[in-house]
């Protein structure tokens, strides 16, 4: 099954009321499949919008009016939503959105990396990254439950093309079980013409910070909800999820941590090295927001941890590396980074074999698969 079709299908199982989505590569197949479902009666309302700013803004309104809402976007589309993303989280509206991670212009590039979502990291949204199509499907269902419990919007991040245009086997969760798993959405402050309310209005200097402190605290505590919902999902559907997935990390001295579909290649490499007796592990950072700092400290503290990330922060160190370094500070860990694979650049297994090998010599801080600077 096409992963995009599967994501759209489970969104309808989740009984979404309103979808607003503007096509942009590589999230277009999700929008396309949602549209197909809508015309066939899959859910009650698809708002055709003229751009992504309108898509997120109309979902913000629909969510405030008590509707379960869903969208899909990526790259420049997500950038155009930027302002309204903050409004959505500030108004505590649990919109769920699939983000088909892609590069950002200029130069124009439509292929996979994670720069689009990374630069929305302070928008107050939950960000869950998926390593394969099955995870994207399962995470979409969980995202509604997490978002609505915490009243915080959530992004389901999946690498463009790798996970949006691939066809593979998907265990599509049972429709009735999904309905039972996901209680109806209840907004405590429903916009209703009979009982008018103002949502997200003006907060004076004496009040504004209180709202931000509250959102920060709730986003942090959503980590617990993500774990609970992941466990519950496991009981019902047989696949359990957490904040971070650790693979052979317990006795490992070297661990590569990453997010997104590149995990799969690194896992293959790590397994092959294990078979040769090397103590290497690999971890998938499923939840980037909230950032699971204490979880990482407990599981990776003291080890040599290398962050592979498909994003950059011009003028500073890459963002995931910065946060992993902060989380593992004081544990005796060495934290390394290899950033790259931007705009769809591919990595072969040899690149990660070389990284594991170089970690033996100490800290690594390098571009990944760079033409200029060889590892």
């Amino acid at each position, binding site marked *: 099954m096409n992963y995009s079709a599967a994501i759209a299908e489970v969104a309808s199982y989740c009984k979404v009321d309103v979808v607003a989505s503007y096509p942009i590569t590589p999230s277009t197949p999700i929008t396309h499949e949602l549209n197909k479902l809508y015309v066939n009666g899959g859910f009650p309302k698809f708002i055709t919008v003229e751009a992504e700013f309108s898509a997120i803004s109309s979902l913000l309104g629909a969510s405030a009016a008590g509707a379960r809402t869903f969208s899909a976007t990526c790259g420049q589309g997500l950038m155009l939503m930027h302002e309204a993303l903050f409004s959505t989280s*500030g*108004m*505590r509206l649990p919109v769920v959105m699939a983000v088909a991670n892609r590069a950002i212009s200029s130069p124009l590039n439509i292929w996979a990396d994670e720069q689009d979502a990374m630069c929305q990291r302070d928008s107050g949204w939950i960000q869950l990254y998926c390593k394969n199509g099955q995870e994207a499907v399962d995470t979409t269902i969980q995202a509604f439950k997490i978002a609505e419990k*915490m*009243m915080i919007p959530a992004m389901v991040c999946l690498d463009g093309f790798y996970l949006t245009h691939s066809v593979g086997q998907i265990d599509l969760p049972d429709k009735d079980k999904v309905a039972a798993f996901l209680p109806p959405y209840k907004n*405590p*402050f429903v916009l209703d013409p009979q009982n*008018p*309310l*103002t*949502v*997200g*209005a*003006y*907060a004076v200097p004496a009040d504004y910070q*209180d*709202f931000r402190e*509250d*959102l920060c605290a*709730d986003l942090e505590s959503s980590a617990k909800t993500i774990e609970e919902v992941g466990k519950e999902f496991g009981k019902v559907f047989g696949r359990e999820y957490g904040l971070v997935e650790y693979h052979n990390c317990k006795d490992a001295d070297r661990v590569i941590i990453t997010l997104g579909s590149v995990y799969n290649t690194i896992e293959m490499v790590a397994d092959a090295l294990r078979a040769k007796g090397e103590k290497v592990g690999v971890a998938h950072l499923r939840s980037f927001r909230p950032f699971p700092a204490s979880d990482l400290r407990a599981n990776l503290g003291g080890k040599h941890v290398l962050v592979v990330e498909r994003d950059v922060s011009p003028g500073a160190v890459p963002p995931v590396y910065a946060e992993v370094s902060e989380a593992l500070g004081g544990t005796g860990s060495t934290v390394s980074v290899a950033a790259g694979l931007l705009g769809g650049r591919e990595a072969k297994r040899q690149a990660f074999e070389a990284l594991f090998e170089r970690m033996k010599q100490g800290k690594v801080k390098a571009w990944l698969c760079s033409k200029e600077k060889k590892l």
Partner: protein
Amino acid sequence: MKFAVSKPGTTVAIKTGEWRSQKPAVDLAKCIKCATCQNYCPEGCMGTPGQAPDIDFDYCKGCGLCAQECPVKCIRMEQEIKLVGKKKA
């Protein structure tokens, strides 16, 4: 969990007149009651159109549009002196 939700009516409750640094002064002898100021006023606080301006200073922000648009120039913006720390003029 905090929700930034309020009942409608904040535009009444928030006395935007506190923001004012200049205040319109009308020379009623020169006023021709043409309603231009009343139609232009973004706050709708210049009184009834067709009658002499009756400014609601609780809400007048002192933007000066009325003085700008008055065809007979009978409105002048004056510097307003307010006591720091005290609410309302």
